[in-house]
């Protein structure tokens, strides 16, 4: 099993390397001279040339990539053109809201969608099943920002249950923090719920057709135990997989949700940095998100061993 973990870890290296090369090339091949941007409007051509050579921008592209990748490995992402500070520092300031939002969203999504999917599979073809499938198509189709404004309109403006926008740091107290985070997390979790519920339903449905379910029922186990212990437990691997794949959706949603709810997180930072053409920041944030996506899916793969003891690597 340790060899499997080692092999799986090693297999993420090429993916991350390709990601790094792609992001590097994408931004290095953009029109516009980073040295000139960094130097400012008033700089002379000698100053620009000096900055260019100090950044290594006068070297060949492969050498530049080597320097850039070497810096990344030492945790140096460069300096933001727009915010005039180290990108690592900038990310450190902005990461809390994004982590909080993502965690709460995944929590809500899993707690809601898995039971819904199990019930739908249990009552396959019934009204609940149809309603859930209808909701799931709807959840995929309503854009997250449209949903956000509908929720703000109803829940915040008409009912006054939650604040319209804004964010409170965890340091300001847990309840205000949660109070500001609930509506964005609910908004973001809808598409995720649609996705997980669909897969949960399909894989529980498949498990329910197996012989051991008939055996479990025949020996008189309560239906809840058959569903949870026998059907759901055997359907856990596809569910874990889709939670991992859904992280990509979640990251895209974070960018939009933070923008609508004025949450000062990494998603908001990405949009602001793109609008300001602040490429070191864009580069770092995209790398970070892609890295998180790859690592989470790695963890999901490793979790199969826990969910399904039949899988031995």
């Amino acid at each position, binding site marked *: 099993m340790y060899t499997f973990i080692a092999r799986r870890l090693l297999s993420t290296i090429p993916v991350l390397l390709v990601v790094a090369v*792609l992001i590097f090339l994408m931004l290095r091949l953009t029109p516009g001279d980073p040295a000139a941007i960094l130097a400012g409007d008033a700089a002379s051509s000698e100053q620009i040339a000096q900055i260019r050579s100090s950044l290594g921008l006068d070297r060949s592209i492969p050498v530049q990539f080597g320097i850039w990748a070497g810096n990344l490995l030492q945790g140096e992402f460069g300096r933001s053109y727009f915010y005039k500070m180290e990108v690592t520092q900038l990310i450190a300031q902005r990461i809390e809201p994004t982590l909080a939002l993502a965690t709460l969203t995944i929590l809500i999504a899993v707690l809601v969608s898995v039971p819904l999917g199990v019930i739908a599979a249990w009552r396959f073809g019934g009204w609940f099943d149809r309603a859930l499938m209808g909701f799931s198509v709807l959840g995929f189709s*309503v854009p997250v920002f449209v949903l956000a404004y509908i929720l703000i309109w109803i829940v915040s403006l008409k009912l006054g249950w939650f604040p319209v926008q804004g964010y409170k740091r965890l340091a300001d107290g847990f309840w205000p923090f949660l109070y500001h985070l609930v509506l964005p997390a609910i908004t973001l979790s809808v598409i995720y719920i649609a996705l997980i519920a*669909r897969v949960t339903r399909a894989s529980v449905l498949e498990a329910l057709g197996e012989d051991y379910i008939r055996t479990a029922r025949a020996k008189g186990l309560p239906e809840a135990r058959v569903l949870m212990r026998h059907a759901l437990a055997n359907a856990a691997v596809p569910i874990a997989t889709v939670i991992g794949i859904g992280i990509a959706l979640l990251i895209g949603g974070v960018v*939009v949700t933070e923008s609508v709810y004025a949450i000062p997180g990494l998603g908001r930072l990405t949009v602001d940095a793109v609008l300001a053409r602040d490429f070191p920041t864009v580069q770092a944030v*995209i790398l970070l998100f892609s890295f998180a996506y790859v690592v989470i899916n790695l963890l999901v793969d490793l979790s199969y061993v826990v969910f399904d003891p039949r899988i031995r690597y």
Partner: protein
Amino acid sequence: MNPQALSVESANIARRENAWQRLQRHWSVRIGGVVLVLLVLVALCAPWLGTVDPSLFDAASRDLRPGQSGEITTLEGEMIKHKFLMGSDSFGRDIYSRVIYGARVSLLVGLATALLSLAFGIVFGLSAGYLRWLDGPLMRVMDGLMAIPAILLAITLVAMWRASLVTVVVAIAITEVPRVTRLVRALVLSIREEPYVEAAVSLGTPTLKIMFGHILPNCIAPLIVQGTYICASAILVEAILSFLGVGLPPDIPTWGNIMSEGRVQFMAYPHNLFFPGVFLALSVLAVNILGDGLRDTLDPKMAKRL
């Protein structure tokens, strides 16, 4: 041939003959198809649906409520009476006209993105699946592309290039190409083991002809389904990009742009967001439902999995 095999054979033929009829019977194909046809008609007939030029504005008709009447200045400088069915925005432009013309942009982006990503995905997928030496390197690049969250990739690509209809379509297509490539590659890997491919190879058929003449036709059904889903997702991503202010330039009336401009005064004038939002959700829903129906009828193997 024994009778049982014969009956399986004839059942297959009967099913193939019925594919079009089965499509028409499927309720989600009907609903999705009808809504989509209506939207296409609305987009095509935009000038004759009581709209004005979507770029027209009039300071006197700013922030009108839906259904109010006002005046608007035409390009010739004439003042004409106009009923603002969906109200007007903070420049005094007619939201109704902008939403109707926006349907053109959204549907065009959806269709163009689907075709573009299918075209590239087919070429890459066939190459990776059939030319073994290309498989490794090509798929590693695709894995890398897929590891970058789609919306972030699209935002960055559009920001790097100048935002226009073409760059937005290309950027969204780039995020979809790896998925199509994977699908085609997987299909090719199973199809290439079929006896008729072996027969073609042994007859000395050129590789290109085997790839496009023998293998590709057998991938069509799943590709149509995939293309429909890409279309829905492209409409959605375009709206998101425009809404965030990194998509199509603001002078093009798109649902995302209308909502992006309307969000500032959302509290006072929610109609700026409401109408384009409904149209957006409705179109994506129609295309998705159509896709589900196509999947159930054309690609039963995939339908079983979900």
